[in-house]
C-alpha cells in the first residue's frame, strides 16, 4: 500500500504496465465488429482546383465500399462557426471535401472506404485526379513583404498580441552606449507523435456515435462532430483513454475524425480511419519564423531598450498566432520596448501549437541576444541576467505569484560548474574539440482552465473520479490520483481516476501545461465537497460518536474519518456506507482560477539551462555533452513524471537546436522529408548527460495546490543555451535553427 502524502513522491505511472505490455489500447486499435476501413487521398498539387475525378479503376476492385470526394460528400454544416473547434484561430476554418479548391499540398481530397485497410490504401492510389494548378507561395523568408497584422478572434484571448510600445525605443537605442542586433530564423517542425492520428467510429444507430479518437481534447472532438454533422452532442461520445503523444497536434480535431464520422453516418457502419506517417505532415506544424531583435544597455549592464519584431507563417485561410515577441519584458525591466508580431499567409496548412509554442522560438532569439549583449558589455552572461533580474513583472508592474528563477540560475550554475568557464570564445579545449558553455533563461505561462470533476465514494469505501481530460502520456492519470489520495486520505490503490471520455464532466483540451492545475484544483474542490457529505452522513448515523463534533475537528485518514484530538476514534468509509445503507455518495464541482485575486498578479513558470557542447575544430561536428536545467514550476506533484517531462523537453530542445526541420521545397510547394528516416530527431547516441533540478518554489497564490505545470518549460531555454555554447566554443553566432554543423566550417 502506498504511503501518504502521495504528493511529492516519485510514483511510477499507474498505467505503465498496460502500456509496456500492449494492453493499453489506442484509437486505431479498437477492434469493433463489422469494421470498415477508410484511407485518405491527399492532393499532389499545392494550389488550384480539382477539375476531374476518375474513380473507374477503383469501382472494379473487390472490397471497396465507397469513395467520398467533394462531388458526392454528404451535406454537412454550412457555417464556418460550426466547424470551428475550441482551438480554431480567427479566419475561415478548413472544411475537408468542401469544394474543389486546393489550398495546400497534401490536402485531404477523398476518402476510400473498404472492407480492409490494405484494399482501401491500394484503391486510394487508383483514383485519378485532374487539376488546374495555380501559382503558390510557401516560403516565409522569401515572402516577408506580404506580412500582415494577425486577425483577432476568440483565440486571441489566450494569445494576446504584443503589448503596446513603452517609452521611446528608437531614441533609447540610438543613444545607448552598448547595443546589439540580429536576425533569427526557424525552420518548420512537425509534431510526429509516435501514435499516428486515428479515429474508430462505432455506429450505434439513430444518429448516435461512439468514437475512439486520438485527441488532446475529448469534448473538443465531441462538439466538433456534433456541430459539423448536426447531431445532438449527447449522442456523440468521444473516448481517448490513451494517447501516444500529442505535443499540441491534437489540440484541434484532425481530418481523419471528420472523414471517419462522415463515412460512418453515411454508410451506417463502423468505420476506422488511420493516417500514415507521411500524412502526419499534412496538417498543423510549428511555423517558420523570422525574428529581428535589437537590445541596448547602459554601460553598467542595465538593459534599457528592447525591440523584438517577429514574423510567423500562417495558412491562406486562418490566422494562427503564437506569443512570439512578448516574452523579454516579462523578464528584463527595460524602460523602452517595441514589440511587433505579423503573419505571412502561405499556401500551407494552418500551423498548430507545438510544445511551448512561440515561447521556445521567441526565447531562443531573446536569450541569444542577451548573450551577445553580455559579450558586448564584457560581462558574464549569468551576471547580466542577475543584474537585470526583476522580482515583479516589468511588462505589467505586477508582482509574480511566485518567481524562483534566481534559485534556478544559481542552483543550475553550481551543479553545472559555470564558474569554471573562461569567457573568451574558443579558449576552452579538450583534445581537438572546442568546448563551449552556454546558458539561457526559460519562461512559460502558468495557465489554469476551468474544469469540472465528479467524485463517487463507493460502498466499499473507494473513490472514483470522473473528468473528461486526456492523459497524453504526461502522467496525468497518476498525478490526479495522487492529488485525490492526499485530499481524501486513501491509498492510491483505492482511487480510480476515470478520464479520457467526453461523457465525463468538463475539461478543456490538454495543452499549455495547464491540466495538472486545472483538473487538480477541481479534484481538491470536489473532494472537499464530498468530505462534507461524508461528515454529514456520519454524524447522522444513529449513535454516531461524531454527532456532536465540529467539522473542523474531524480528519480524513487511512480511509476513515477520525477525531483530530484522538485519531483512534475512527469510522471507516466502508462502515459509514454500510451504516447509512447507501450504494454511493456523490459530489460534482466546477473549479477554475481565482480570476479576481489573480488579476493583481503576473504568473509564469521559469527555468534556467546550462549546456556544454564540444565542437570538432576542423570538422565542426557538434555534441551536446551535458546539460542542466533547473525549473521553477511551483509545487511538483510527482518528481518522477515531472522529471520525465523536463527530460523529454530538453531532448526536444537539443532536437530543435541541432536536428529537427521539415524541409520545404519552395519550387514544389511541399515538404520533402515526410518520414522519420529523413525527418531527424536525436537518436540515443546524440543524447548524453542531462540533469534536472526542481527549484523549491512555494506558490500560495496561483491556486490551491500551488501548481504551475511542467509540460513545456523544460524546452524553452535549451536552444538558446546550445547556440550560446556554440558561440563560446567557436566565436560564431549561428542564428538559424537547426544549426547544421557545416555552418561552423
Amino acid at each position, binding site marked *: 500500500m502506498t504511503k501518504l502524502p502521495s504528493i511529492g513522491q516519485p510514483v511510477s505511472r499507474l498505467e505503465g504496465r498496460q502500456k509496456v505490455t500492449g494492453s493499453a489500447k489506442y484509437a486505431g486499435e479498437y477492434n469493433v465488429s463489422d469494421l470498415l476501413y477508410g484511407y485518405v487521398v491527399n492532393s*499532389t498539387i499545392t494550389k488550384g482546383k480539382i477539375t476531374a475525378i476518375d474513380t473507374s479503376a477503383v469501382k472494379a476492385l473487390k472490397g471497396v465500399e465507397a469513395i467520398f470526394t467533394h462531388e458526392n460528400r454528404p451535406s454537412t454544416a454550412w457555417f464556418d462557426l460550426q466547424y470551428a473547434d475550441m482551438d480554431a484561430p480567427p479566419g475561415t476554418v478548413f472544411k475537408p471535401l468542401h469544394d474543389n479548391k486546393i489550398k495546400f499540398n497534401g490536402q485531404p481530397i477523398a476518402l476510400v472506404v473498404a472492407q480492409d485497410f490494405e484494399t482501401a490504401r*491500394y484503391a486510394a*492510389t487508383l483514383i485519378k485526379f485532374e487539376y488546374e494548378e495555380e501559382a503558390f507561395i510557401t516560403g516565409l523568408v522569401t515572402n516577408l513583404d506580404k506580412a500582415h497584422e494577425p486577425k483577432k478572434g476568440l483565440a486571441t484571448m489566450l494569445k494576446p498580441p504584443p503589448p503596446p510600445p513603452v517609452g521611446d525605443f528608437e531614441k533609447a537605442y540610438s543613444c545607448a552606449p552598448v547595443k546589439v542586433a540580429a536576425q533569427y530564423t526557424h525552420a518548420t517542425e512537425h509534431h510526429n507523435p509516435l501514435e499516428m492520428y486515428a479515429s474508430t467510429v462505432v455506429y450505434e444507430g439513430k444518429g448516435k456515435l461512439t468514437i475512439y479518437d486520438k485527441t488532446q481534447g475529448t469534448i473538443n472532438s465531441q462538439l466538433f462532430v456534433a456541430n459539423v454533422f448536426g447531431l445532438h452532442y449527447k449522442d456523440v461520445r468521444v473516448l481517448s483513454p490513451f494517447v501516444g503523444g500529442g505535443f499540441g497536434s491534437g489540440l484541434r480535431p484532425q481530418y481523419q475524425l471528420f472523414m471517419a464520422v462522415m463515412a460512418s453516418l453515411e454508410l451506417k457502419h463502423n468505420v476506422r480511419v488511420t493516417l500514415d506517417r507521411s500524412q502526419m505532415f499534412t496538417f498543423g506544424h510549428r511555423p517558420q519564423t523570422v525574428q529581428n531583435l535589437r537590445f541596448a544597455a547602459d554601460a553598467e549592464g542595465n538593459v534599457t531598450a528592447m525591440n523584438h519584431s517577429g514574423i510567423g507563417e500562417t495558412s491562406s485561410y486562418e490566422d494562427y498566432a503564437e506569443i512570439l515577441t512578448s516574452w523579454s519584458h516579462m523578464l528584463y525591466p527595460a524602460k523602452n520596448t517595441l514589440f511587433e508580431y505579423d503573419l505571412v499567409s502561405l499556401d500551407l496548412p494552418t500551423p498548430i501549437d507545438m510544445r511551448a509554442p512561440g515561447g521556445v522560438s521567441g526565447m531562443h532569439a531573446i536569450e541569444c541576444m542577451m548573450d551577445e549583449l553580455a559579450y558586448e558589455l564584457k560581462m558574464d552572461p549569468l551576471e547580466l541576467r542577475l543584474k537585470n533580474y526583476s522580482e515583479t513583472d516589468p511588462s505589467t508592474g505586477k508582482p509574480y505569484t511566485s518567481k524562483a528563477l534566481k534559485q534556478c540560475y544559481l542552483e543550475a550554475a553550481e551543479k553545472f560548474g559555470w564558474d569554471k568557464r573562461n569567457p573568451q570564445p574558443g579558449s576552452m579545449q579538450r*583534445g*581537438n574539440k572546442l568546448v563551449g558553455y552556454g546558458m539561457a533563461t526559460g519562461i512559460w505561462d502558468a495557465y489554469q482552465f476551468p474544469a469540472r470533476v465528479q467524485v463517487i465514494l463507493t460502498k466499499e469505501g473507494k473513490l472514483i473520479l470522473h473528468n473528461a481530460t486526456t492523459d497524453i502520456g504526461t502522467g496525468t492519470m497518476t498525478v490526479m490520483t495522487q492529488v485525490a489520495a492526499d485530499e481524501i486520505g486513501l491509498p492510491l490503490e483505492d482511487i480510480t481516476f476515470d478520464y479520457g471520455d467526453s461523457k465525463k464532466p468538463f475539461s478543456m483540451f490538454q495543452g499549455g501545461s495547464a491540466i495538472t492545475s486545472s483538473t487538480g484544483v477541481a479534484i481538491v474542490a470536489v473532494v472537499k465537497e464530498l468530505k462534507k457529505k461524508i461528515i454529514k452522513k456520519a454524524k447522522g448515523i444513529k449513535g454516531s460518536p461524531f454527532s456532536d463534533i465540529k467539522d473542523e475537528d474531524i480528519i480524513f485518514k487511512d480511509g476513515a474519518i477520525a477525531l483530530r484530538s484522538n485519531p483512534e476514534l475512527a469510522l471507516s468509509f466502508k462502515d459509514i456506507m454500510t451504516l447509512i445503507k447507501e450504494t454511493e455518495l456523490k459530489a460534482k464541482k466546477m473549479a477554475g482560477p481565482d480570476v479576481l485575486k489573480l488579476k493583481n498578479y503576473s504568473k509564469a513558470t521559469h527555468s534556467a539551462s546550462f549546456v556544454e557542447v564540444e565542437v*570538432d575544430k*576542423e*570538422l*565542426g*561536428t557538434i*555534441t551536446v555533452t551535458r546539460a542542466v536545467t533547473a525549473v521553477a514550476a511551483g509545487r511538483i506533484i510527482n518528481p518522477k513524471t515531472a522529471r520525465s517531462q523536463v527530460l523529454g523537453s530538453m531532448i526536444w530542445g537539443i532536437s530543435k537546436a541541432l*536536428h529537427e526541420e521539415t*524541409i520545404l*521545397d519552395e*519550387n*514544389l510547394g*511541399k515538404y*520533402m*522529408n515526410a518520414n522519420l*528516416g*529523413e525527418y*531527424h*530527431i*536525436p*537518436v*540515443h*547516441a*546524440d543524447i548524453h548527460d542531462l540533469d534536472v533540478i526542481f527549484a523549491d518554489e512555494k506558490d500560495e497564490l496561483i491556486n490551491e495546490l500551488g501548481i504551475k505545470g511542467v509540460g513545456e518549460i523544460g524546452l524553452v531555454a535549451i536552444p538558446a543555451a546550445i547556440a550560446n555554447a556554440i558561440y563560446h566554443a567557436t566565436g560564431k553566432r549561428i542564428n538559424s535553427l537547426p544549426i*547544421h*554543423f*557545416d555552418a561552423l*566550417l
Partner: protein
Amino acid sequence: MNNFAYAKATDVNQASAQLNGSTQNKIVAGGTNINDLLKYFVTQADKLVDINPIIDNHTITQLDNGGVRLGALVTNADTAYHPIIERDYPLLSKAILAGASAQIRNMATNGGNLNQRTRCYYFYDVNTPCNKREPGSGCSAIKGYNRIHAILGQSESCIAVFPSDMCVALAALGATVNITGPDGDRILAFADYHRLPGDTPHIDNNLKHGEIITGIDLPAKGFEKNYSYLKLRDRASYSFALVSVAIGFDLDGTIISEARIALGGVAHKPWRVSEAEDFLKRKKATRENFAAAADIILQGAVGYEHNNFKIPLAKRAIIRNCMMALNPESQRPGAQPSL
C-alpha cells in the same frame, strides 16, 4: 504498393529463370530497401523473386588466395561481427556498423547493399520530377534542397548519391563482385560495378537484368593495421553520410607503401581516385601529404546551393581520417570523428 507475384528460388539458376519474362521481375533478399521502393511506388514489380532460400550464398569463407568470400545473402550484421572480418578487415566491419540501424543491418544482405538505391528525397516522391525514377522528367534536386547530394561525377540529369557505407569500404579494399546469370559467371572489379549517372541515371550499376550477385571477394590485404572509417552526418546514428571516408594504409615506418582512400556521400558511386593513392606512395604520412592527396581526390568537385560545404568538409574529412588511420584504436562507435 501494386499487387505482384511472389516466387522462391532455391538456386541461382532458378532465380535467374524466375527473373525472365519481365524487367519488372525483381529480386528480394533482406527487403530493407525494395519494400520501401514498392510502398512508395518508386519501383513497380510484376514478381518478387525471393532468393533467401539459396543456401550457397549464406556463408563467409576463407579463400585459397588468402582472401575472403562474402556470401551475397550473409546479413550486414553477421558480416560486421564475423571473427575473420573483425580480425582481418576491420575497415569493412566499422563501415557496416556505421550504416543504418541494428535492426536494418540484421535484415539487410551484402548483395542487397550493393543494389540499394539513392535516398534522394525527390527520387522517393513520385509526384516530383526525377530522371532516375522517370527518365526525361527532369531533376528536382539541382534547384531544390540538395544538401545530401553529389559534388563529384554528377551530371546535368542527376546529382543523387549512392548511400552505402559498406560499399565505401569495399571500394577501398578493392573487392570484386561475383555475378552469375543466363550468360554465365563473370567478375566485376568493385570500381566497375556502380555507374555514374551521365544521361542514364536510372541505371545505378552494371548488373544486367537476370543476373545475380553470388558473393563479394575481398583480396588478401585487409589493411588491418592502419585503417579508419569516418562518417559525418546530421545525427550520430541512423542517418546517411554527408561525407564519409574509408582509409587503408600500409606503412613502412612513417612511409606509406600503399594507400587506399574512398569517399561516400559525395557521388553516384563510392569515389576512389588512383592518382591520389599513387601520390601518397612512398611519401611520409603527414598532414601536408594527406592534404595534397585530398586536393587530388576533390579535383573538379562542384557544389550546389545547399551542399557547397561538402567540398571543404570532404577535404578536412580525408585529412582527419588519414590521421585517424595512423591511430586506428582512436576510432569511436558510429564512425564519429576522433583524435
